[in-house]
């Protein structure tokens, strides 16, 4: 699997290159800002891009913007954003266009090479990845009229895995349950949450994420 990396901290960039190469990935290029990233991807489109959010020149959200642009310009290139921010807003912004070939992972995951590589593979294969901590924050948040109240503990776990981007098969593998059982859980969850018109596949991830976040503040 071919990777292009964008990270402005030299310390982390060098560490990540070593980590990815030791895990058997082919690092085509490692750049330090969003502009070089766009150029590198345009020159040699990789299977997956791994990028930081906050980079020169403005140290704002240029990595995220570049990720969205790369997804639009190169439909076959997956983008995994490594974020320093535990913000559901950024994750939703990344998934908003088509929710495939994208991932939003906290930078903390650099300590777990296996998880990082697995996420990169899922993204490259067209999947969608949302960091478990982001999902945990949304599921655990206290609510006035808790819509998650009717869910059983197991259903909550299934809902969390749905939000993290796993398919029914993926959830089944991780919970050591049959796909049939998971399918039943998913149907029960969607009925209880009144999400019956929810699309399948990656679009489901965005729908569940939006449901967990609740209505936007500007909505009446």
């Amino acid at each position, binding site marked *: 699997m071919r990777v292009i990396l964008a990270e402005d901290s030299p*310390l982390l960039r060098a560490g990540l290159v070593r*980590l990815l190469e030791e895990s058997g990935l082919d690092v085509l290029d490692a750049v330090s800002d969003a502009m070089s990233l766009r150029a590198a991807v345009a020159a040699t489109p990789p299977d997956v891009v791994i990028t930081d959010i906050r980079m020169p020149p403005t140290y704002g959200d240029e990595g995220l913007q570049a990720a969205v642009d790369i997804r639009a310009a190169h439909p076959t290139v997956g983008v995994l954003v490594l974020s320093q921010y535990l913000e559901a*807003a950024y994750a939703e912004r990344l998934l908003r266009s088509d929710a495939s070939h994208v991932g939003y992972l906290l930078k903390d995951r650099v300590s777990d090479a296996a998880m990082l590589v697995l996420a990169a593979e899922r993204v490259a294969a067209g999947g969608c990845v949302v960091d478990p901590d982001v999902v945990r924050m949304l599921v655990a948040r206290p609510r006035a009229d808790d819509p998650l109240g009717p869910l059983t503990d197991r259903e909550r776990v299934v809902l969390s895995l749905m939000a993290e981007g796993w398919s029914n098969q993926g959830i089944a593998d991780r919970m050591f349950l049959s796909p049939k059982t998971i399918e039943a859980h998913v149907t029960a969850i969607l009925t209880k949450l009144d999400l019956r018109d929810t699309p399948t596949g990656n679009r489901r991830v965005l729908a569940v994420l939006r449901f967990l976040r609740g209505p936007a503040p500007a909505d009446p």
Partner: protein
Amino acid sequence: MSLSAAAFWTPAPSGTTRNRAGWPAWAVAGAGLIGCTLSLLAPILHGLPMHPGAQAVHAAVTAAYVGAGAVALVRRPGNAVGALMAAIGFLWLIPDLGWIRAPLSATLAVTYPQLYQPVLAHLALGFPSGRVTERAERWLLGYLYAFTLLSNLAVAAFTDPRADGCSDCQRNLFLIHSSPLAEQRASEVTTLVSLVTVVATAAVIGRHLWRATSAGQYAMAPVMWVLGPAATYIVLLQVADLVSLPSAMERVIRDYLPLTLLVLPVGFLVGLLRIRLTYARVGRFAADLAGPAPPGRVREVLATMLHDPDLELFYWSSSSAAYVDLHGNPVKPDRVADRATTAIDSDAGPLALLVVDPAVLAEPGLVRAAGAIAQLALENERLQAEVRSQLVQLRSASARLVQAGQEARRKIERDLHDGAQQRLLALSMTLGRARDLLGPKGDPRMRDSLDRAHADLHQAIAELRELARGIHPVLLSQEGLASALRALAERSPLPVQVAAPAERFGEGVESTAYFVVSEAITNAARHSRAGLVRVLVRRDAGNLVVEVSDDGIGSASESARLGTGLAGMRDRVTALGGVMSVVSPPGQGTRIAVRLPCA
């Protein structure tokens, strides 16, 4: 109290000038008296008594102009008005020179009976300063003088008083060629051009009055009153020269209409009297200013007293070493363009700056008197303006402090991000690699230690992330208040509902509003036992309004329960010119409202 005037006419200190100005005034008055007497006596001496009424009117014009001129020379030394009025009075007597049986006097009497007219126009355009400043008006005056001198000369060149065999008549010194026909033609042309000239001059004077400021018009009142009657008189005089009118009518025009000219000197004297009366009323104005007065009262009283409704008053602020207005804002120089300024000083230093119409300074004594009676009230208002000026400075200083605090927070957040957070992430990467290298067959105690270190490090990274977020949430500057408040609600320890518009409000305002909500939620979570916090953000008439209400136990108003965080937020809100209120009746929840001015 001293007074300095930057007007076009700077008055000299009164006492000495008045003494020095004394003798020309007396000389003028004496000459006028002699002139009038001779004018009245001459017909009798020559055994040709005239109608007493006509004689009285004729002498009255000279008496009024010379008299008013003499008064003006005393009252306003250095101002040309006095000289101009006296000149009109004397020139008016030119026809009387005919009584002197000599060629020169007779020639002048016949040629220049109307020489006072251009001087009258000069006076009208120069009233009350005595100066004609506008270019077009100066050109007009030049033309008027030249036309009057030359046109009458042209007529005289052909006029031979002895042509009809009048041997008793005096010789015309200006005669070049005796020709009654040429004389008649020249006279007709001259009279016609004169008519046009009079009307045009009246129009220019009218425009001059029309364009004056209200204080200027007040000062020019005598000119305003005389313009119509005098123009009518002079026009009728030309008409009487052109066509033959019934003799009674012609007598009225020539003998009695000169009364209209009296309006100007009489008006001038009335104006002086009015100023005297204003002096007499100074006591009343002083009474108006006694006791506590609302801000701006001094300005009103001075505007009434000096007849300048647009009068402006600025106060000396010693802290900013500048004149400031009632609200403490420094005076802008363009405010005083086209206006005259006059400083009012006390013994202790500058007190105030009067910005008035230049016409007001024509009566410097009155301005001084006004300054004197207003002094105490002015000192009072000046101190108030000074306090307000300091408040303005204080407010901008605290706004700068808030700004600096915010920049410091951003810098700390950036330093944490670039420094400690990156190092800890790199460390966790190294630790993860060590764990991977150890593999499943490694020493279990070693593995256990690495796992524990990894868990602690993970916790430290998460805590540092939340710390940086609490110092400055990146989402706030990137996506705005609504997005940042939503994210705040997502990690809040109790349910929070947010309603906020997606628009942006300016960095300082957004940041302050955000931290008010953050502190309010922290407070509610800590003390209120609330089940729900509602956050409402809206824009209201140039303000950002934020309301945070909970359904808890209330009683949060006491400072102990309000928390130092919120108390600090109140300071920050105030520094930005906003207000913050906390309503927290026992058992009825807490409602914190903030109103922040925003662009």
